[in-house]
């Protein structure tokens, strides 16, 4: 976020600068790893996907466009995309649809237990993010999290929550607009 400007690392990585890559890893690996654990609920899977994410960042650094978004958003998109792919393939192997609601609480518990590993330099940014999400109504937030962390479709979320599809869709759209507005305020 703009309140905490940091030196851009991806352009240097695009030039083959390994030390810049190490700095990028040190700066964002905890954020990405937390996300992967949240999605996959498996340290082994999360570590594999974390490695895939940073290797892809190394090989695709030239494709990064700072106009389109921040470095951390770019890394998060790579990591989430790979994690959701893995989660969906895992679902194909075992029917876990009934456990999805429970997983949210499991993830939350896991993450809360590991807050001691927070990186100091990111704490200020995280506080700002928390502030941005604080105003989000619970119903909207749950709908967004089911889509974002569980990779569920609109209709799957509607079934899971027992709500009409239109209602779920509207909640997600309103929630995303609020997040965008808050992000604009930060920037």
């Amino acid at each position, binding site marked *: 976020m703009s309140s905490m400007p940091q030196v851009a690392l991806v352009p240097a990585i695009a030039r083959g600068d390994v030390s810049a890559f190490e700095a990028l890893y*040190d700066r964002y690996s905890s954020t990405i790893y937390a*996300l992967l654990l949240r999605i996959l609920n498996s340290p082994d899977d999360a*570590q594999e996907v974390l*490695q895939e994410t940073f290797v892809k960042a190394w090989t695709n650094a030239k494709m990064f466009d700072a106009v389109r978004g921040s470095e951390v958003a770019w890394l998060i998109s790579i990591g989430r995309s790979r994690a959701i792919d893995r989660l969906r393939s895992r679902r194909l192997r075992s029917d876990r649809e009934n456990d999805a609601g429970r997983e949210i609480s499991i993830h939350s518990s896991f993450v*809360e237990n590991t807050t001691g590993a927070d990186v100091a330099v990111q704490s200020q940014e*995280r506080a700002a*993010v928390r502030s941005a999400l604080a105003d989000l109504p619970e119903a909207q937030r749950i709908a967004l999290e089911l889509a974002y962390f569980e990779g*569920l479709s*609109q209709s799957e979320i509607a079934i899971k929550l027992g709500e009409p599809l239109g209602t779920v869709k509207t909640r997600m759209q309103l929630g*995303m607009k609020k997040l965008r507005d808050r992000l604009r305020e930060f920037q």
Partner: protein
Amino acid sequence: MTHDEIESIAALDAIGAATPEEQGLFAEHVRDCLSCRRARDEYAEAATLLARDLAPVAPPAALRDAIVGAVDEDDEEETRERGPRINPWWLATAATLFLALWGWREIGIRVTRTDNASKQAEIARLEEENRLLAQKNEKLSSEMTSLSAAGTRTIALVGKEVAPSASARVFLEPERRRAIVFFHNLPPNAGDKSYQLWIIRADQPAPMSAGVFDVTESGSASLTVENLPVETEMKALAVTLEPKGGAAQPTNTRFYVMGTT
């Protein structure tokens, strides 16, 4: 669809909740809509707040070494695969020199090919000339043989009114019924005319053609006559100017040279 509707899809797409149909409409629209592309990027950034809200978790330290090591190894392999760096200036110079030398070689090959073709044509022309000279030599040898033969007779033809200074000499070989005639001081014939030699025979009223010939500025010409009638049947020889290629019978009585046998 309106921009607001597209933006609503962008909001869903950012968290992976847009349906395939909505994704198609969205992708088609943003291709040509800058404001909606900007909205897409903003929503994508906003969606990451959900991830950034999570409490960070440090991955195992060994994982860092493995990831950085893999990337470092990849970088070394890439450097090896790239090979030694080549200065673009030298590369450009080398390429220019190569093209110049190649172009010069191509020009040389084409010049040589043209030269070869010209020389081949010259060789063909000389061979033809040589063949004609050989034929001429054979003819002259034959004529010399005739002229020096023991039974050869000489007949003189003298110029008449139209060409008083003209003359001709006939070398007649009765046994071979062949004659060689040399003409001198005849006026050059026009392009549409030919001189024609006639044999006036004793046994026939109509003259017999012995051949046609042309006379150049030198005024000289020669003619070989084969299958002559026997000597006793030949009464006289005469030359007239006839249409090009000769005539079956003389078209006029204006004799250029004439003589009796």
